[in-house]
């Protein structure tokens, strides 16, 4: 028997795989798919950062565009640690294509355009006599 927690949705069902390989306690089908995969080849989305050359945005958050094999996470982190980004990217842009030959890309999860005060700051407050 094996106990695991389904991480597909926030319900976090405690799923049991019994000795016959039957999957119990999953509230929905996605949970059954997850438990089957967990028992054979577990996968995770990797979320991390890569370094940039910009002092106002020293690291850029990134993630894998799909799940990768759990055992590949350390190698993936290594690949991310070797990146030094010298251009301002938008959200969703590919940072590493086909990481570790997995078919999955590493993409930016933030737009570097949203740095300091690029939204208009109207100077319309009545000044206080400070």
């Amino acid at each position: 028997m094996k106990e695991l927690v389904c991480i597909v949705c926030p319900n976090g069902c405690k799923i049991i795989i019994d000795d016959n390989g039957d999957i119990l306690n999953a509230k929905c089908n996605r949970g059954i798919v997850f438990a089957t995969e967990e028992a054979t080849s577990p996968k995770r989305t990797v979320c991390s950062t890569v370094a940039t050359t910009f002092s106002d945005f020293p690291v850029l958050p990134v993630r894998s565009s799909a799940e990768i094999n759990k055992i590949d996470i350390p190698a993936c982190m290594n690949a991310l640690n070797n990146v030094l980004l010298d251009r301002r990217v938008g959200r969703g842009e590919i940072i590493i294509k086909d990481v570790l030959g997995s078919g999955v890309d590493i993409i930016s999860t933030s737009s570097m355009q949203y740095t300091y005060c690029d939204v208009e700051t109207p100077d319309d407050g009545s000044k206080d006599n400070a």
Partner: protein
Amino acid sequence: MNYDVTVIGGGPAGLAAAIAANKENASVLLVEREARLGGILKQCIHDGFGLVTFGEKLTGPEYCERYIDELLQTDVSVKLLTFVTRIEKNADGFAIHFVNREGAAHVQTRAIVLATGCRERTAKQVFIHGTRPSGVFTAGTAQYYVNLMGELPVKRCVILGSGDIGLIMARRLTMEGAEVIGVYEAKPEPSGLPRNLYQCLDDFGIPLHLSHTVTRVFGDERLTAVEIAQVDKNMRPIANTEKIIECDGLILSVGLIPENELAESIDVAIDRRTKGPICDQKYMTMEKGVFCAGNALHVNDLVDYVTLSAVEAGRNSAYLTNKPRALVHVVAEEGILYTVPSVLDVNEPVSDVTLYFRASRELRNAMLTLRVDGRAVFQKKYSVLRPPEMERLKLNFAQYGITTDSEVSLSLKEVE
């Protein structure tokens, strides 16, 4: 300058509230003290956000930037690097005082949406004795260093408290090459979500020690070790269970509290259980014209609910009337920790109320009962309820004929 609505705070709650008020044709000002919009989600780079609102598993930055994109399409005025210091009530509404690089100034507004988020409890609030070396951080501060500054603040650390942010940081620090010796929780049950226990601790072989706490910290300038002890059911350390663990970091994940300095400055009534303002179904606090949304109202575990409630608060803030309120309390009885809203204004529509609640302890096969004047008018069965997980209920209170004299209560009881 005059605005219909001023939103204080540019996190997910403030963004959603500003967009919603703008859609109702209100003139809106959004004030944020930081240089970038997005609030705490800027540093929440892990995924899991947006399942309810977008049906997708987004990271924090992706989630909040969708709203920033939308906000920038509107004519909402935005002030960044602007800190609201004080609110003053006057005949036409409120004067919002702030400071920024141009100095101190104020604007006039008819309505306010408080969306200032929450802050983390710190060592002082959990009574850690000993010296004050550096190396003691809240989980949010550690998250800020790693995810926004790209710095690893610890090499070998202990995490005190099993809150979600601590669990997420246990994984994050491990992935970045730090050693997380273990997570220590004083209570007999973990306070984080099961999915985070599984994918943040189990995945990386990080042990969770329940009924344990940090009793002392060592080190002059930098932390060198902590003392851990087992605690009894009254959370008192048990003698002779002390253990010294060498480490250069202690990360605190002992809970969040709504940020309410501004609300308190204008004497908005605070709910002693949520630590946020008491509000009605329109998210208006007990002070007319002052609305509240997101983590400033009560600590949410899902940002999706933050957005949903902020949309309501923003929309309602655009329609401020002089109609007097007729308030009825929703009394949280046995099994219920709190409800939001905790009061209903029966002079306003009550046919479509979203009620958020938390169970006061873990309950299995629990029956939720809504009573009006002692009569059970609505029941719902839950297979399992845990305090860390907030529940959401849609209720049509109009069908129960509630008046200001009604007694409305909600309770939870375990049944067979």
